[in-house]
């Protein structure tokens, strides 16, 4: 039986939006294509996304995102539906179904919540539907305060134990790849990412392949990460977080 390989794809504001705050339709379409292609290659994929506040801001005709917390929450509630509409539209174009999953950061701390959320995610993956996950800003303000979805990404990682997390970099069109059991930050091009996908499908060890294939690779030390902050901040958590993920009891399913 073919082993399934689970990826969390982390989509940040600048993955989807231009500098002027407008949603980039070509960027989003390209992203949908890349992700669907990875799915077609055999990966199980989950997306953790930001963008609701940006779209809510545009919808309400505000010159820039609000700074007041309560207004941000409301704007997120307005924009989230739009965000999903665009995801749906672009993934539909590649014949890939997506679903909306809104969770709060404490989801993994409450056993019932955790089981429910996990069940939903696994069930969607089994149905070949890509879950698109965002923070439920109406009832929680954690990410909204930080303006960052990396903690949520780690919560999702705790729920489903991915083999790797991918972040699309905007600067040079590379992907940052953090692989479980492999304290290594890989920056790979789109081509390499797909080559890796095919090798995984053929049953090769992804960690070795990444070591071999990545364009640049950085052995991870916390010091280096801090020097490269903020974009490598995720890895501090990955180093600290993944072993914990692997050793604690996540066997219930």
């Amino acid at each position: 039986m073919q082993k399934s390989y689970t990826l969390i794809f982390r989509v940040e504001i600048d993955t989807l939006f231009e500098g002027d705050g407008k949603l980039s339709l070509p960027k989003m379409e390209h992203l949908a294509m890349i992700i669907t292609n990875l799915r077609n290659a055999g990966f199980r994929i989950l997306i953790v996304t930001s963008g609701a506040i940006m779209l809510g801001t545009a919808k309400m005709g505000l010159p820039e995102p609000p700074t007041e917390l309560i207004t941000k929450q409301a704007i997120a509630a307005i924009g989230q539906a739009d965000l999903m509409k665009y995801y749906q539209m672009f993934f539909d174009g590649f014949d890939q179904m997506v679903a909306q999953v809104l969770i709060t950061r404490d989801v993994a701390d409450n056993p019932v919540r955790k089981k429910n959320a996990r069940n939903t995610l696994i069930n969607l993956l089994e149905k070949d539907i890509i879950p698109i996950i965002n923070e439920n800003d109406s009832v929680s303000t954690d990410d909204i305060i930080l303006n960052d979805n990396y903690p949520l990404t780690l919560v999702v990682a705790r729920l489903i134990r991915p083999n790797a997390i991918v972040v699309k970099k905007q600067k040079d069109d590379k992907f940052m790849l953090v692989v479980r059991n492999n304290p290594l930050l890989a920056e790979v091009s789109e081509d390499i990412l797909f080559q890796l996908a095919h090798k995984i499908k053929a049953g090769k060890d992804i960690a070795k392949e990444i070591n071999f294939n990545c364009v640049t690779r950085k052995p991870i030390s916390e010091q280096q990460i801090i020097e490269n902050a903020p974009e490598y901040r995720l890895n501090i958590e990955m180093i600290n977080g993944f072993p914990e993920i692997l050793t604690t009891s996540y066997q219930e399913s």
Partner: protein
Amino acid sequence: MQDKYWKQIPQTKIVVVKVGTSTLSYPNGKLNFQRIEKLAIVLSELQLRGRKMILVSSGAIAVGSGKLGLKSKPTETADKQALAALGQAELMKIYQKLFEAQNQKVAQVLLTRDIVDIPERRKNASNTLGALLSMNVIPVINENDTVATDEIIFGDNDTLSANVACLVNADLLVMLSDIDGLYSADPGKDPNAKIIPLIHEINSKLEKSAMGSGNSFGTGGMITKISAAKICQTQGIKVIITNGANPGILKQILEGTPTGTLFFWE
């Protein structure tokens, strides 16, 4: 006699409207777009006239099933959750489209029952809803089925709608259903069964008759509606149960035309 109470309904300012799956879809599970459009039109109009309208809507699972092309309703809770995640975004897309045609903005708010129990959740939810109302946006609320399975298992959002009504200090909760109101007995069995037009207090006799009235359509029968009304009673929020086949009835209700069952606390 009941006119005295109905005359006060036009003065209500914050109104929560709850629609169940049976109102939004055909018996075969497919969406009734005409009805949803009418709902969007009437809610937008009422909002335009100065009210603050809030919609609590089920329907995500039905839409998700349709999208996957399922022939029958899923029975497993985990399947229902996945279908809800699939269908909720689609449902919002439809609401957005139909409301925006009326120049009315909507927002999606997904809540769980713990907005009642956890103060921080409660505060956040209440803040979000308050901000949306002040921005003249209609919140479209559903249960967050990903993390909670209450609605799926129990009450088709009846309880949620009552909790929301309390959260926003609503004046009125209207529950649109596939029956005309609360009956005195099972209308299918008893030819003398009549709609009770006015209720001032929920007592054990009433709860017993609801239990025996056989109104167990959808996930939520009359029992969950009575307990929703009970929640509203604690804050003096008026409740109306009526048939949602023609959503235009909301306009008549808010003009003070007696319809269905009115819970007016004394």
